[in-house]
């Protein structure tokens, strides 16, 4: 299931909270959209802490972080 979390424009630490919740809910494959460098770094750190992998693609102002096990 390819879930998409839109965390654009949300202030710290909500993108991380949403990512963490998705992981806790047992999702193993999903995408997180953010629009700042800081949120991108934070989400990636959260993903890696949970021993999952993150890959980033950039389009315009949006970073899409694809998370997988």
């Amino acid at each position, binding site marked *: 299931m390819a879930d998409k979390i839109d965390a654009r*424009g949300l*202030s*710290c*630490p909500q993108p991380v*909270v949403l990512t963490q*919740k998705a992981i806790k809910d047992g999702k193993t494959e999903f995408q997180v959209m953010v629009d*700042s*460098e800081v949120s991108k770094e934070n989400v990636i750190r959260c993903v890696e802490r949970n021993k999952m992998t993150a890959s980033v693609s950039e389009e315009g*102002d949006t970073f899409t972080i694809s998370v997988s096990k």
Partner: protein
Amino acid sequence: MKNIFSSRWGIIATGAVIGILAVTLQKMGNPANMGICVACFERDIAGALGLHRADVVQYIRPEIAGFVLGSFVIALIKKEYQPRAGSSTILRFFLGMFAMIGALVFLGCPWRALLRLSGGDWNAIVGLAGLIAGIAVGVMFLKNGFSLGRSYKQKMSSGWVFPAVMVALLIMVAIGFRVSDTGPLFYSVKGPGAQRAPFIISLAAGLFIGAIAQRSRFCTMGSLRDIILAKDFHLASGVVTLLIFATVFNFVFGQFKPGFEGQPVAHTAHLWNFLGMALSGLAFALAGGCPGRQLILSGEGDSDAAVFVVGMIVGAGISHNFLLASSPAGPGAFGPAAVIIGFVFCLVVGFTMREKVS
């Protein structure tokens, strides 16, 4: 290019630099255990502008302008300048106001709490305990879907306003501007507001710290929040480093004086030290950053953070005008009442501003 400052070593280096510079600024004239206190220095700015008339705490602190401008310039260079606004503006203003009211009951922001501790002021431990408690409540709200809503991209110029105001303040203080002999800007001739490191050194330190804090995303509130929320010790490594380096340099400069009693610009009313900082911690957590971080975000173009800062400056005026701010003798006449009102405000915000958690 990867941002090396966002690494573990980057945040540690930032903590070390802030710790060393803060204590060195004290050595060069800034108030004791207050080398760089964002809340105190914004309060001094409020005083200089005449928003309050506590004549011992009035000065346009170049450090504050330095943080904003350092962040602004480096964000432009690194293409991270991103004008944005629109996330619960008025709530952020009042969160800033109550954060300042709480901070002035304790007498310091989180940065100063660390600097006070590094100088041997044990009252800071009580304040930090309060800070943790306040942030823990904030984390509870965050876990339950608390959100001030999205911010949206703005035109380039909307993010220039705040840095421009900082430049204006710097020019005014540099030329010693006064509207008349009895009018603003006010410059303290005694008390903490009269204790200043040389202008150019304060400004340089502020610019440098602003730049590296922008790169590393240094945040004291965030460090505690991330531990409670996600057992993430990334930001905490910077904060601990700040504490270690500040303590070492206080020893080197002979500025370490341990105890509860008679500490500079501090009082020993434990309950209010705790609750004041708890209120601030909760307000910072809901607004997403400590006072230092809000200045850095303002420089990056975040108008919502700038509004929080303005709320803090206005809050400082209100704190002194309405006898809310503490003094070394203890809490102000109405400080405790204001802290309780602040908690009510923050709790209402925390409970009502929720996105549906599906």
